[in-house]
């Protein structure tokens, strides 16, 4: 350890990893994956793992990935809710692992929901 920069680097790196223990909800983005039996059967687990990989790859310290139960629309599983601070939640349906990087890049990083994946588009 020779400088503040080295210390800062460790700090930033570790903060990303323990950020989910923070109590301040106003700054975190929450990705919630439906993981009831229906979700898991439809392939929600690889989707969730993809979200975790993608957020780690991009070093998104303010994102938590968590799971929830069944909300009743089992035919649309795997479903993923994304909560950006201060915004309405956006629900993605029939999510596949290959869709994840686009959702993270366009929605979570740039704030533009991927309309064609959302429940609104699916139910038209």
């Amino acid at each position, binding site marked *: 350890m020779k400088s503040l920069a080295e210390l800062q680097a460790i700090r930033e790196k570790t903060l990303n990893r*323990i950020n989910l223990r923070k109590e301040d909800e106003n700054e975190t983005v929450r990705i919630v994956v439906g993981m009831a039996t229906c979700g898991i059967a439809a392939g929600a687990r690889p989707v969730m793992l993809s979200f975790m990989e993608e957020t780690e790859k991009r070093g998104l310290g303010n994102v938590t990935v968590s799971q929830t139960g069944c909300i009743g629309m089992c035919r649309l599983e795997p479903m993923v809710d994304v909560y950006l601070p201060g915004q309405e939640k956006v629900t993605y349906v029939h999510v596949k692992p290959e869709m994840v990087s686009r959702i993270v890049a366009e929605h979570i990083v740039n704030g533009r929901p991927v309309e064609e994946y959302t429940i609104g588009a699916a139910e038209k």
Partner: protein
Amino acid sequence: MEIYRAHVLCCGGTGCTSSGSAQLIERFEQKIAEAGLEKEVKVIRTGCFGLCEAGPVVIVYPEGTFYSRVRVEDVDEIVSEHLLKGRKVQHLVYTDHASHEQNANKSLNDINFYKHQKRVALRNCGVIDPENIDEYIAFDGYMALEKALTKMTREEVIDEILKSGLRGRGGGGFPTGLKWKFTYNSQADQKYVACNADEGDPGAFMDRSILEGDPHAVIEAMAIAGYAIGASEGYVYVRAEYPIAVKRLEIAINQAHEYGLLGKNIFGTDFSFDLKIRLGAGAFVCGEETALMRSIEGKRGEPTPRPPFPAVKGLFAKPTMLNNVETYANVPQIILKGADWFCEMGTEKSKGTKVFALGGKINNTGLVEVPMGTPLRTIIYDIGGGIPNGKAFKAVQTGGPSGGCLPAELLDTPVDYDNLIAAGSMMGSGGMIVMDEDNCMVDIARFFLDFTVDESCGKCAPCRIGTRRMLEILERIVEGKGEEGDIEKLENLANTIKATALCGLGQTAPNPVLSTLKFFRHEYEAHIKEKKCPAHHCQKLLQYVITDKCRGCTLCSKICPAGAITGSVKEMHHIDTAKCLKCGACIEKCRFGAIVKI
């Protein structure tokens, strides 16, 4: 360390460990692996969360769900429900004693126990993994050391501590900055920094919790202190009875070495600093600074007269700066956030916060940290959750064997160094033992004196002989053999010991007697004159009698081990007081509340 979607924080403090948290962690790891979640969920052993009453404590993030009193059997359910399916296990979620509210979601700070607290010294306890230096660094760890070494002169560091008004948290309340300054001013080829982790007060365990939950904070602070006073070596004196604390401190020191945060040329400066651990055998007197230093040197732990003060001639006859664990835990924060930030908390003469170990007759046994000046009532009722079983509050003992008992009239006393001394007690290291109407104050004084008699090192006569004579008088009183003039004899002895004992142990040993005499003199008088214990506690002064509520069910006579109860069916029974052992078995058994102690 990878990114996980959930963290399971299990308390690994001594309290929760003794109620089985180590087995919990094992079970969690096993079940999580069975469910194939090991890449998603991480189990972390943390330090003490403070709410030991509810232990073992488990917190699951990101939801922040606070599970309490978790048993090994419960782990399967938490894994299969919460971690796998994302459904909280409601019946295991912590419920507040007073409001019966469950902690719904996120934020421990919504729980009454934490709402009134301000965690500075305990800020990382229960939050980080104490065996992972990266987590400490993530929470601004070692930033203060970097700031002190590269951006501040030694004088500026000392000035900042002086300005903060930080006072010794180990008991005396001596201004920490002054201690640093005195040692800085001493000229010598070698100086030492030492840390007093020989926490000896019965019931106090904040130093243990800090070492267990945030050991790096103490290491960082000692390095800062070493820089400020010009010492290249430090000693942590910790009792061998704290194995978890010792182990974590060892791990932390090794990690700090690996990162170059201890050792030679820290942060590329010419400052070098190293730490050693010395284990104490647990003698109370070794918490006294001169005795502690003798013990580190490998000699018998006995105090020596001051002056010379340690700042002039301490460890190995070199200038030494000794602070307590909790005092050190405040230092990095003060350097990082500034003295002004610290001064905003607390009262005029006592700045910052203080950790208290709540124990005795109180609902939320545990560790709490509040700003100085918080009234006793807030600590005992709002945070501590009040007295169990609807009993009435009688007194609170602060300061351990050196402190005193404060009665209900003083519950609104704002807690700081000077107010407690004015009230006839002292801060001590922060033990706080709550007593209810069933506690006999004479017996409490006897208990504490028994402790000091045991722990007296025997070097000086006032402490060795004087405290024993006091104990003998107290034992006589609680056995109903008290005589007229005993109170005066106690007062006379107490004042003599206070004035003449060699060290703090002896000088403060009479305090429990003096303070109970001050506030509960009538209890002493009742014991001596009427041969009665008003709290119905002292066995020798008690009589069990059966009142006319008795229905003659014969249960009591069957349970009495001494055969002291006689009477026939459906007739009032009678206790032969000569045979009665006063074991209380009959009271527990009686369904009509007919048996009373008088």
